[in-house]
Each structure stands twice: as structure tokens, then as C-alpha cells.
């Protein structure tokens, strides 16, 4: 559906996106994940047509759209701050993208009504964006972007402006919406939980490059680099043979084990409990079930992990 080939975008000589190759399939939720400044938003903007790449190509459905202006691309964007038109009603915002399409007035009105009910905003069509809550504004932004029936929906940190509770609900709604529409969603986020929860595949970015692409479980269980291991979830890293051994906290078992240490601190997170242990290997974190009984702070504890929990990473 989307092919990105050797894409490079520099700002003032410094590459923000540095030779990215990427293929995103039809009907896929693909997430670009990385810390701020990693180039994920710039890459998304190159796909949307808001930045002209210095090198490389963007193909949509097999067509090279690299030189096409945003208004000529069959993609639409949900902007980070939603960018709703403040002087237009909800219905007029949703209808905006239909004005340049060849449609009868009745068709247009029907499409607007369809989109508004798709995001469950019936009854709010006449409101201005300033009269809506944050969650409602986000729905308008989605309805507006979907109204043109894009082949791909681009979403730039669409959940970052929502509070934590609403964010979790909205994640599920987005997944549900994508499943019903069957189009590709390309999502930009710095929140690894969000990326894990909704993506079919994740592309982890660092310094303008994609360092690993894979399904969430693959990224989590088999990180390709130390950066990925540390960015996606918690990880214990132990130096060995000039490289690193990575072990996820939930694979560390407490009690009898080949290693010994002292419990430094326990953090109770509800369903899980994190146990921080000082040992000869350095600071180790173990994640145990919240209901497990754990040693007190300062107590000596043994720990270990099964061989298949180890992941070797290059230095």
C-alpha cells in the first residue's frame, strides 16, 4: 500500500529522516515509534506531502507520489492538535474535504451524516470546535480525515492530548474503526504502551533511521538493538563477551538462583510489583505478580532466569 524507498529529509543540513525504507500493507495498523526528535513525525509528513524529501521516493498503491502536493494525495491526516477549523461547525469541518470532490449536495450531506455517526457525534453537528471536549474534537478530526475515503489514514500523536483514561478507550475505538474500514492506519507515537496496544507492526525509529520493524511481541521479545530493548518496555542488560545479554523483568525469578543480591526497593503497581535488586551484576529489576509475597527492603535475595529468556545484543 505504502512504499518508502531511501527517504531522506534534512533540515539545515542535518538529516531528520535518513535513508528510510519501509513497506506498509493494505489494512495494516503501522506505528512509527521513537523518542522525540527521532524523525517519526517528519517521515509521516513526507508521506502526507507536507515535507518534500531531499532523496528517495514515496509510493502509494504503486504510484510514485513523491512530488505530489498534499491536496493531490489519496491520504488524509489526523493532526496532533487536530487543527480543526475554529470558524466552522462540526458538520462544516467534516464537509470541508468533500467540497473539492465531484458530489451532489445530497451525497455530500449523506457522507457528512455518515461520518458524524461513525465517530458517534450525532447531535453535535452544529457546534463549533470551541464548544467540544478534547475527546469530541479528536473524533471530529478523525471524521473529517475519513470523509474523503482515503486509502491511508495518517495519525500524528492522535491520543497525546487526551487524559489517560480516555486514551485507553480511544485506542480500542481506533482499532475497532480500522477493522471496520479496512484501510491502512499509519500512526506516530512516542508512547510504547500505545504502540504495543494497537499496532499490527511497529517501526522503531532512532536518529532518523528505522532500527527495527516487527509485530509488537517480536519487538518486545527479540529487540534488535540495545536502544530498542531499552525503549520498548523495561529491560535488564548484563555485559557478557563484549556484547550485552538482555532479560525482561518478568523473566527474572526470585528465590533460589545462581545470583544473589539485596532488595533495594519494591514498587507496587497494582497487578504487578517491581523489585529492584542491587547485585554483582548491577541494578536488576524483576517484575512479579502484585499478589506475590516479596522480601522486605534490605533483605538478601537469590534470583535467576531461564536460558531462553536471554537475548544477545551487539555492543
Amino acid at each position, binding site marked *: 500500500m505504502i512504499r518508502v524507498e531511501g527517504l531522506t529529509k534534512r533540515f539545515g543540513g542535518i538529516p531528520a529522516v535518513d535513508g528510510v525504507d519501509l513497506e506498509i500493507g493494505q489494512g495494516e495498523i503501522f506505528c512509527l515509534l521513537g523518542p522525540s526528535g527521532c524523525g517519526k513525525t517528519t517521515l509521516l509528513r513526507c508521506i*502526507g*506531502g*507536507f515535507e518534500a524529501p531531499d532523496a528517495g521516493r514515496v509510493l502509494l498503491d504503486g504510484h510514485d507520489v513523491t512530488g505530489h*502536493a*498534499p*491536496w493531490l494525495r489519496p491520504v*488524509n*491526516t489526523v*493532526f*496532533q*492538535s487536530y*487543527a*480543526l*477549523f*475554529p*470558524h466552522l461547525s462540526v458538520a462544516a469541518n467534516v464537509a*470541508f*474535504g468533500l*467540497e*473539492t*470532490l465531484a458530489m451532489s449536495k445530497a451525497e455530500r450531506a449523506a457522507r457528512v451524516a455518515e461520518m458524524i455517526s461513525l465517530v458517534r457525534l450525532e447531535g453535535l453537528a452544529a457546534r463549533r470546535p470551541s464548544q467540544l471536549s478534547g475527546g469530541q474534537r479528536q473524533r471530529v478530526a478523525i471524521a*473529517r*480525515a475519513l470523509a*474523503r475515503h482515503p486509502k491511508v489514514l495518517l495519525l500524528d500523536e492522535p491520543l497525546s492530548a487526551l487524559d489517560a483514561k480516555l486514551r485507553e478507550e480511544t485506542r480500542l475505538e481506533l482499532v475497532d474503526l480500522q477493522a471496520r474500514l479496512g484501510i491502512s492506519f499509519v500512526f506516530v507515537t512516542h508512547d510504547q504502551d500505545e504502540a504495543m496496544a494497537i499496532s499490527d507492526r511497529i517501526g522503531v525509529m532512532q536518529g532518523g533511521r528505522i532500527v527495527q520493524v516487527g509485530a509488537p511481541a517480536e519487538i518486545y521479545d527479540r529487540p534488535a538493538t540495545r536502544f530498542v530493548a531499552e525503549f520498548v518496555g523495561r529491560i535488564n542488560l548484563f555485559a557478557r563477551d563484549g556484547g550485552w545479554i538482555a532479560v525482561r523483568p518478568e523473566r527474572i525469578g526470585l528465590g533460589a538462583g545462581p545470583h544473589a543480591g539485596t532488595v533495594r526497593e519494591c514498587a507496587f503497581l497494582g497487578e504487578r510489583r517491581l523489585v529492584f535488586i542491587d547485585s554483582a551484576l548491577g541494578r536488576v529489576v524483576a517484575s512479579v505478580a502484585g499478589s506475590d509475597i516479596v522480601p522486605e527492603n534490605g533483605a538478601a535475595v537469590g534470583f535467576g532466569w531461564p536460558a531462553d529468556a536471554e537475548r544477545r545484543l551487539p555492543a
Partner: protein
Amino acid sequence: MSEAPWHSRARRIFVVPAFAWLAATVALPLALVAAISLGEATQGAPPFDWSFTFSNYAIVLGDALYVEAFAASVRIAGTSTAICLLIGYPMALAIARARPERRLWLLFLVVLPCWTSFLIRVYAWMGILRPTGYINSALQALGLVEEPLGLIANAFAVHLGIVYAYLPFMVLPLYATIERIDAALVEAAHDLGAPPARAFWRVTFPLSLPGAVAGSLLVFIPASGEFVIPDLLGGPDTQMIGRILWLEFFQNRDWPVACAIATALAALLAGPILLFDRYRARGT
């Protein structure tokens, strides 16, 4: 009073002197002018007696000279405002879209003429436009015209002077409004299929209207009462009300009629201000 929360007391500290200042320098003189407009002219000093008569208004409204002058003022100020808008809008748009480090310089250039006295700048236009001025001397020296062109003492010169003098007051509020429009809104319009011209007319332009209205008022209101420009650059066909007011006051020494003209002018200009207020109240 002592139980009022600190912020309400603090607000009083700042607001009370400001209102006292406005009352002393605006409301009081205006009330005085309105009171004198109801008086009767005499030969004394001051040249009027307190009274309560509307005869001065009858004189002003009954005399074609005054009514004509009011109409000419509104017409000239209106046309000049429209020209300022047509010139100022593209300027403000270009400045708002210039690179940030350049914007400050461009704004500086807009404001730069104001560093010289208004009066001197209008005199400078006399030097440029008069029959023996720079333009006519140059045209005659080049042999392009035989007789000097009539560039001064007419409506053209008055419009030129007003547009020249008041253009910054149009550009600045327009710039401030356009610059505040979120660039993401224009990108969203592009994303939704609108090419640049369409995005401008559907998004940027409607969102810049408050700036256009504010700029138009800042030009129209002082231009309607303008005295210096029609006096120095105008002619018999540009009798603006500000000039008539000056003549009544200083040449005819008819203070009550002059005050009636001033009060009528203030009432006339209050209209657009109230309209703007309602427009703003509706917008937010």
C-alpha cells in the same frame, strides 16, 4: 473592602488610576464639548454663554456646507480605508509568512515613518506634489510634460496622504491576526484537498477578518476627523469636517457650533465602534 481577596484589591490598584485617567482626559472634555454645543455664541471671552438650546445642531444639520463636509469626510475616509485594506492585506500576509528573523525587520520598516513627526511627513508630500515640487520638476526636466500636473489641492492628494499616513495602522493589527493563525490549519486545508488559493479563501481569510475590521476602524475613525491632511494637501473639493471644525473654532470663533460639529462627529464614529464590539462579542 479589607475583606476583598488580594487579587481583587490588586486589580483595583491598576484599574482605578486607568479609569480616572480616561475620565479626566476623555470623558470630561467630551462632556464639556457636549455642554458647550448646547450654549449660545457671544462676543465675550470665552465666546459663549451656557444655555440649553439645540439651535446649533439645527444650524449644523440645516446647512448644506456642513452636511456636505460630513458626507465628504465619510466618503474620503471610507475610500482611503478600502485602499489601505487592499495595500495592507498583502503586506501583512507577506510579513506573517516571511521567515521569523526577517519579520522583525519588515515590521520595523512599516513603523519606521512614524519616527518622524506626522506634520513634517505631510509637509514633505507638499514638497513632492506641488507644481514646483520634485515630481513636476523631474517630469518637466525630462520634457514629459509642458505644464505642471495638478497633483496637489485635490481629492487625489488627500487620499494619497491619508493612505500614506494610516497604512501602518492597517498593517499592524492585520499582521498580528494573520500571524496567530495556526499553520496547521492551512496544512489541514491542503490535506483535505484545498490548493493554496482555496485554502486561503476558506481558512486564512475568514480567520483574519477580526484584524481587517480592527485595522479598518483604526484607519477610518481618525481619517474621518482628519484636519492636517485635507488642510495641507486638499483643495476646495475636499472640505472635510475636521477642517470645517477648525475654521468654526478658530476663524469664526463660534464655539457652540464647533462643539455641535464635534459632538455630531463623535456620535457618527461611535456607530462603527459599537458594530465592531458586537462583531467581536459574537466571534468569541
